């Protein structure tokens, strides 16, 4: 595949693969945000086993 400067001009510089490989800096999360993230993590940790229980219960329950 031939390099063609005119063709590459169709891309914005920030779209080049080499540009997207540069990492963005970390963002500092506030206490409220961290609390929300933890709350939803707890929610998932509690909810998924309940779904698992419901799934198994439905399978073993007499029809």
């Amino acid at each position, binding site marked *: *595949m031939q390099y063609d400067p005119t063709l590459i001009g169709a891309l*914005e510089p920030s779209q*080049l*693969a080499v540009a997207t490989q540069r990492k963005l800096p970390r963002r500092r999360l506030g206490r409220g945000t961290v609390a929300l993230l933890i709350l939803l993590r707890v*929610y*998932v940790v*509690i*909810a998924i086993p309940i779904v698992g229980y419901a799934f198994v219960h439905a399978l073993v329950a007499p*029809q």
Partner: protein
Amino acid sequence: MSDDAMRAGFAALPEATEEVITREDLLRARDRLQVLKARSAKRSLRLLWLLVGPGVLVMLGENDGPSMVSYATTGATYGVGFFVPFILLTFLMAFVVQEMTVRLGVATHRGHAELIFQRFGPFWGYFAMGDLVFGNVLTLVTEFIAVQAGGLYFGLPSWLSVAIGVVLVVCSLALRRYATWERVLMALAVFNLLFIPAALLAHPDGAALAHAVATWGPLPGGMGTAFFTLVLANIGATVTPWMIFFQQSAVVDKGLTRADLPDGRMDTAIGAILAAVAAIATVVATAPLFAAHADVSQFASGADFATALRPLIGTTGATLFALGIVEAGLVAAMTISISSSYSLAETVSARHSLNLDFAHGHLFYGVAIGSTLVAAAIVLIPGAPLLAMTLTVNVIATLLMAPALLFLLLLVNDREIMQDLANDWRANLAGGTIVIAIALVGAFYGLITVFPNLLGK
């Protein structure tokens, strides 16, 4: 560019010299050149045609095997009533969510997984990826359940239809060009609309449909555990974590820029409308089973819906329904496996694009092929409870959606990376309402599962 953006890593962009240009860049540039020509010639329809793709694919892709089975179960259990406007509402919700991913993609030119890792760090990144991988593997299994179920209707043995499905997924990866992959999948996704003629063959009552939309009723049987399971399954049939990851990465891979945002939104809206029509058509097509008091709890797979519908809507209608189920599974298997590829490659900073050749995309293509093979193998386990798995996967997808949406909202409000494309208060109100609603419905489902007598019988 603002100072904040400069600090955020967009500064000192490289010169586009021959040394830094990759095959991926050249292929993307070729697609972009067509877009720029169409825009300068003010050919708006041509421009829209060139820019549609990620939105249509994500919406029709989410009308997948488990989703169509959820809609079929809904139609067979409740007929035409409450769930018709409810499905419209869920697709409106999907549009609100997916539009944010388009903005994130055009503003940052980065995928969702890499943004979470880079902005929030690996601790939260691995949680997000854990949710995604868990949900994607389960969902991919159910896509092959759909392919297998459709095959059974046509008399194909399970192993053969699953093997054909695997070969087609792998062949789609062999295209090694995003634009071609996207157009091939869009052509396949059109078959999702097969549920519309199937619905017409069920001779739907237009007045009943209009009444359902206007009144959100009837709701035969009231609000019990089965009702809330279907509410969750129908939400999970419309908004799931893989959609967020997929569309953002696809927008970046396609090369959409800020100038393309209106068409990116239009693409998402077109996809939502098409998918909503197909979903409601599925409810309508299976409504005769409700009228006939069919017991769908005994159905082993989506193929049983087609078989049970044959005496009610005819062989043609039932065949269209079975073909639709196969298409739903197949297109979703292709998009979900790529969603896993994008995200895992982004997580480990490996190259991630459908424009990569195999030599540079070992991990990217390997993840898609590996996850496809694992899912296909699980489906072939004898005696697996396939219909129960299918409905449960949608419920799990809904539960995983709340944390995924919070990450999305945090990113789309991050002004350092979004600048003027950050959420305004209306988008935050809509997004926040969706997170709270999904979390509450999920919590309520948990309560009625643990305390089944909470709502009576």
